[in-house]
């Protein structure tokens, strides 16, 4: 919690699930978050591919961190990330061709997902292998569950289904806009608004409590 206290391995894992969630708080990786969250299946495919690349590249970056000179570290990290993205692309095409087709160019674009280079640069290149992997898994889960929230809202409203299962009756007229690009912006904006308002109220409550405590003490 406080910056003075050294972070523990558990912190590395938990931190990015909510408090420093890559999508919700750091607003990173928004390109796939907006583009491919029009169905829950796409979110699962994108989330697992990103998770795989995150964990793989964090692991390898952490392993080689002592041998990579500062001057070439970005090129080295990008090389490592691009390798894992290629592997993820091939694996997805082999295992889930339908999802691979639906994700289109966005699988290859994982290379430039800021979350991954960000974790490589800010964490994996400075921490031991085990903790880097934990941090990567935490980030991957944080990214994936936010994608799933987006995908659920958009697919349910925009198509009347969840993971392909029809959940409304025959008479439900889908809000087509929700699975079109504007729906991504609307959904993300609404989520950020609600979470922001909630956090604001939390901090207000804490502040008034602290104020009351201070007055009491005085």
């Amino acid at each position, binding site marked *: 919690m406080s910056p003075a206290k050294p972070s523990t391995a558990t912190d590395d894992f938990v931190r990015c699930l909510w408090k420093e969630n890559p999508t919700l708080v750091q607003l990173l990786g928004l390109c796939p978050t907006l583009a491919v969250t029009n169905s829950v299946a796409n979110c699962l495919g994108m989330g697992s591919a990103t998770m795989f690349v995150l964990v793989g590249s964090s692991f390898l970056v952490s392993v080689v961190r002592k041998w990579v*000179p500062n001057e070439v570290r970005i090129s080295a990290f990008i*090389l*490592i990330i691009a*390798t894992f993205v*290629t592997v993820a692309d091939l694996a997805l095409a082999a295992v889930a*061709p339908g999802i691979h087709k639906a994700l289109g160019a966005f699988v290859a674009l994982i290379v430039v997902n800021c979350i991954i280079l960000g974790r490589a640069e800010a964490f994996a290149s400075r921490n031991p292998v085990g903790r880097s992997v934990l941090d990567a898994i935490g980030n991957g889960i944080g990214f994936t569950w936010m994608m799933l929230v987006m995908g659920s809202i958009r697919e349910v409203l*925009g198509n009347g289904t969840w993971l392909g299962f029809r959940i409304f009756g025959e008479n439900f007229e889908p809000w087509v806009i929700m699975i*079109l690009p504007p729906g991504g912006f609307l959904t993300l904006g609404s989520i950020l608004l609600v979470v922001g308002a909630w956090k604001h109220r939390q901090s207000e409550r804490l502040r008034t409590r602290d104020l009351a405590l201070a007055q009491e003490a005085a």
Partner: protein
Amino acid sequence: MTGPAQGAPAAPTPPSGPTAGKLIQTLGGLGAVAGLIIVVAYTATLPRIEANKARVLAAAVDEVLGAPARYDTLYVTGDSLARTRPTDGDPASLETVYLGYRADSSIIGFAVTGADPGFSDVVRLIFGYDPRESRVLAMKVLEEKETPGLGDKIEKDTLFVAEFRNAIAPLRGVKRGKGNDSTEIDMITGVTISSRTVIRVINQTLERLGPVLAAHLQGAPQ
């Protein structure tokens, strides 16, 4: 690991930092590891990816020809069809058609692929065609990036897809409900451009290949 120019202990120490050799070594080493990982992944996934592609195509041929007992792959060479893959020419532009047979070896017709730009990207489709009656047997969209919820109805709207069953070429698109003979295809309301694209792809492909297909059947035993 030690680079050049580190020989005698010079009095003023040169600016510290890795040498060029060390940088190249690092990136080269990582590149080799990366290459190895990619090659392993590529060779491991290639058979499955190829199998997936073949399965998708086979399922599509099966669908547009109404479950043929077997089908032959034929290659378009100029104005005739060949059973063997031609060795000359660009393999990327090589066109293939599939000739389907019933269980009693009578001919059902050809499965032909065609493509043309639609509303947002190229629409690729496959259709069954019997040149003896200029009849389209069925149509299936293989690839499209049309607007989800609108343009993609050319693939998902079962009524529209069913319009192509036993339609007589050349096809004409009309407003839904106005079609009364078998050359007229009821288009989807609000999906005019994508609907027209499907019809255009079939007409253009048949304009080009129709005579070739018909000539092949005249030469072949019925």
